[in-house]
């Protein structure tokens, strides 16, 4: 019986892109369903009643929510192709620690900091910028001289972080800073990741993301 895989997602979401990269890494066919978060579909509300957020993966009718939980699920079900988590328990723990750091950051996730970067002004924006860059610098330190966070191979933490790279241009424009100037290794790493088909086919065009942010700022009254 063929697997039925449906992804409820929003095109610009870097969290949704994580799932797209993971599915592409495993060579999986799936049905992508674009969601309108201002007018949530009955399916989304049924499949994620607790948070009502994307991404949601529906595998043979069963929902899995939260982007990193979905990526781990995909890695565990389709374990014999392109493993994302390393096999060594210690390295797995390290990957989980850093992925958790990105999404929690003892309060604000990288996603939330980035959002404040393009949504706010003045002191609030400066604080967000500082937090955002601190996080990126720490992550760059963790990358070191390795080609990928996963070492020689593209892995779980790479999937978790690379999707933010298509948002860098938008963050830089509204936050008035340069990621490359502060974290050149991270930018080099993101370019290396983009050479992979699974990444380049899943990430969105930074200019389109920039346009999306302009639209969101208007909608949220940030102009």
């Amino acid at each position, binding site marked *: 019986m063929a697997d039925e895989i449906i992804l409820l997602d929003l095109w610009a979401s870097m969290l949704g892109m994580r799932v797209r990269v993971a599915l592409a890494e495993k060579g999986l066919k799936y049905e992508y369903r674009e969601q309108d978060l201002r007018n949530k579909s009955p399916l989304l509300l049924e499949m994620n009643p*607790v948070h009502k957020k994307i991404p949601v993966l529906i595998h043979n009718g069963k929902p899995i929510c*939260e982007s990193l939980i979905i990526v781990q699920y995909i890695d565990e079900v389709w374990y014999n192709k392109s493993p994302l988590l390393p096999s060594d328990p*210690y390295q797995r723990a390290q990957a989980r620690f850093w992925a958790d750091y990105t999404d929690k950051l003892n309060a604000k996730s990288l996603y939330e900091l980035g959002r404040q970067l393009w949504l706010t002004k003045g002191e609030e924006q400066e604080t967000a910028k500082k937090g955002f860059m601190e996080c990126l610098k720490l992550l760059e330190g963790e990358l070191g001289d390795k080609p990928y966070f996963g070492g020689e191979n593209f892995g779980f933490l790479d999937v978790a972080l690379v999707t933010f790279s298509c948002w860098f241009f938008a963050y830089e424009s509204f936050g008035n800073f340069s990621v490359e100037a502060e974290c050149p290794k991270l930018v080099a790493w993101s370019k290396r990741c983009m050479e992979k088909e699974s990444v380049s086919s899943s990430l969105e065009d930074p200019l389109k993301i920039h346009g999306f942010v302009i639209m969101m700022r208007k909608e949220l009254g940030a102009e």
Partner: protein
Amino acid sequence: MAGSEVKVLGTWASPFALRIHIALGIKSVTYEWVEENLEAKSQLLLESNPINKQVPVLIHHHKPICESLAILQYIDEAWPSAPSILPSDPYHRAVARFWAAYIDHKWFTWLKGVASAEGAEAKKAALDQVREGLVVVEEAFGKCSKGKDFFSGDRIGYLDIVLGCFLGWLYVAEKRNDVKLLDEEKMPGLAAWAIKFCLDGAVKDVMPDKDELLDYANMVFQAMAKAKLNAPPNN
């Protein structure tokens, strides 16, 4: 295996550190417990967890693992023989991880919010939110346990540990605010589960005495209130 190969840096009152006690107990692993003073953190803690400087930290063969949920999964993988902590099926693992994230990121934040809420109205709202969260988890308990004693079935596992470690602090919130949060009527499943969890062999000898925890909490909150009164005014 020598006890010094496995070290846990923790504090007796930390629910997150309690998770590690329980997990290592399930696996019958011998370990050395290092009680940290969070006001004067040890060099070992600062070196082992330079990012967060928090407990718990598991040190195995001199390598540190941080973040309680990552540690729980590490313990399950480094000591793979039964009993297991996470479910074996990927879908059930995803469900367990989902609820662990809900409990840690949403529900526990609400529980902490009770302590920081100022004024009777804010306190009531905070307490209501904690209770509502428990009602949501009660439903999850029904689905996960499928009529058995624990989230994981017949034996305690990941989600039992993740929620169970907060029972002492839940008791503290109930006593300090003179309310019932884990209500037998509204959450019969969880109320029964809580009793069984606390009696489990891997839990009962390591769980801090809840009245000792209450005394400790009272002392900490009193000190915080005093510090606030004595704090210089902001200019």
